[in-house]
C-alpha cells in the first residue's frame, strides 16, 4: 500500500504549494491525477517517488517511509525521456543501470535489440520513452509515477505504451500513478482519480469509476 498522510510541500519560505494531501493506493491499482498547469501535479509526483522531500507529512510504502538508500520502491517517469537518460550512454547501458529486462518484456514494449547499441539521440521520443518505462520496471519497484509520459506521443504509440504497461502492472501487481491533463486517458486507465486545485486534492467528477 502506498500512502501519504497530510503531505505538505512548499519551496523555500513560500506559501505551500501542496497542503494536507492524503491518498492511498493499493498494489495493482491505478491512480489518476489531473490539474491545471502550476497546480503542483509534477511536484506531487516527485514527492511520491522520493525525488523531493515533503515539508510535512510522509510517503509510506507498506507502513515504512521511502528508503533514502538503495532502490526506491516508487520510481519516477518524467515527461521528457531525453532528459531522463545520460546522453553519453548507449541504450543498453541505460537499461542495465537499473536491470536487465527479459527478452519477452523487451518485445512487449516494442524495444528492438538493435536499439541497445545506439545512443539516445538516435532514438525517437516515443522509442526512448518506452526504454525509460521499461527501465523503471526493475525488480523491487512496486509503484511508478508516470508524469505526462504520453503527452508528446502519437495516438498509436500512446496506446501501445499504455497497453504494455497495463499488462505488466496486472501481472506484477504494480501500482501506477498517472499524471495527465487528458481526462479521457485517466477515465480509461484509472481506478481512482483526483483533481489538484488550490494545493489540495479534490475528488474529481469521474472519480472512483472502475475502468
Amino acid at each position, binding site marked *: 500500500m502506498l500512502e501519504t498522510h497530510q503531505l505538505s510541500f512548499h519551496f523555500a519560505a513560500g506559501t505551500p504549494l501542496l497542503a494536507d494531501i492524503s491518498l492511498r493506493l493499493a498494489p495493482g491499482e491505478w491512480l489518476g491525477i489531473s490539474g491545471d498547469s502550476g497546480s503542483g501535479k509534477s511536484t506531487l509526483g516527485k514527492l511520491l517517488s522520493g525525488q523531493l522531500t515533503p515539508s510535512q507529512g510522509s510517503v509510506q510504502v507498506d507502513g515504512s517511509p521511502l528508503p533514502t538508500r538503495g532502490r526506491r520502491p516508487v520510481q519516477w517517469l*518524467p515527461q521528457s525521456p531525453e532528459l531522463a537518460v545520460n546522453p553519453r550512454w548507449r541504450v543498453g547501458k541505460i537499461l542495465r543501470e537499473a536491470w536487465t529486462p527479459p527478452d519477452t518484456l523487451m518485445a512487449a514494449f516494442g524495444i528492438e535489440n538493435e536499439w541497445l547499441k545506439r545512443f539516445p539521440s538516435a532514438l525517437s521520443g516515443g522509442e526512448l520513452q518506452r526504454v525509460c518505462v521499461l527501465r523503471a520496471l526493475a525488480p523491487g519497484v512496486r509503484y511508478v509515477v508516470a508524469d505526462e509520459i504520453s503527452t508528446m506521443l502519437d495516438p498509436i504509440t500512446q496506446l501501445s505504451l499504455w497497453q504494455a504497461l497495463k499488462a505488466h502492472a496486472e501481472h506484477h501487481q504494480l501500482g501506477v500513478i498517472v499524471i495527465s491533463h487528458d481526462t479521457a486517458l485517466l477515465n480509461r486507465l484509472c481506478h481512482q482519480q483526483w483533481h489538484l486545485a488550490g494545493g489540495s486534492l479534490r475528488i474529481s467528477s469521474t472519480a472512483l469509476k472502475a475502468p
Partner: protein
Amino acid sequence: MNSQPRLVAAGYAGVFGLLVLLLLSSSLWLGDSPLHMQFEARLMPPSAEHWLGTDALGRELWARTLAGLALSFGVGLSAALLGTLIALSLASLAMLSPILDALVSLLIDTLLSVPHLILLLLIAFALGGGTQAVIIAVALTHWPSLARLLRAELLSLRNSPYVAISKGFGKRQGFIVWYHLLPHVLPHCLVGALLLFPHAILHEAALTFLGVGLDPTQPAIGVLLADAMRYLTGGYWWLGVFPGLGLLLMVLAIERFASMLRKAL
C-alpha cells in the same frame, strides 16, 4: 562550420602540433649548444653565422631561446596539468556532500580574493625555487577559477533528471559523480588546461626573472630575459628581443589553439 574557419582551425592545430614536436624534440638535436661558450664570439649581433646573435659568454642565442622555450613548455604543461587535476578533484569532491561543497567554495573564494602573483611568489619562495617549486606554485595558485567553473557545471548536471533517476535506482553518490558527471566535464578540463598553459608559462618566466624560479644556469626564458636586462642599456637588443618574441609567439599559439578548441567543444 564552413570551409574557411575549418581551414583556419586546421592551421592553428597544425602550428600547435609543429610547435609541440619542435620543442619536445629540441633537446635531442640541440645537444649542448645552448651551453657551449665561444669566447672569441661574445655579444655578437645577429648575422649569417650567429643567427640570433650571441650572449656575454658567446653562447648562441637561437639555441638558448629554443631550449628556454622547451623548458618553459615542459614547466607550463606540468603546471597546467597539475592545476587542472586539483580543480577537477576538488570540484568532484564538492559534489559528494553539502559540507564538502561549502568547504571547497570557501577555499576557492579565499584563493580568488588574494592577488595570485603575491601568493605565487610566496609559495615559490617557500619551496626554495627550482623547477618543482615553480610547477607547484603555479598549479596551487591557478586552479580556483577552473574549479569554480567545473563546480558550477557539475552542479547543474547533478540536478538533471537522469541523475535523480539514477539515485532512485539506489546508485551511490560516488558512482554518480564518476559515471554520470565527470565524463561531461572532461572537455571543459581539456580547454581549461590549455587556457591555463600560457598563463603558467608566463608566470614561470616571471618567477624566474624575479629570481625565485628556475636555476640561473638553466637556459630558461626567464633567465635569458633577466640576463638581457643587464646588457640592454649597452645596446645589445637581441638578448631581450628574441627570447621575448619567442615567448610571445608560443603563448599566442597556445592561446589561439585553446580558444579555437573551446569554441569547437
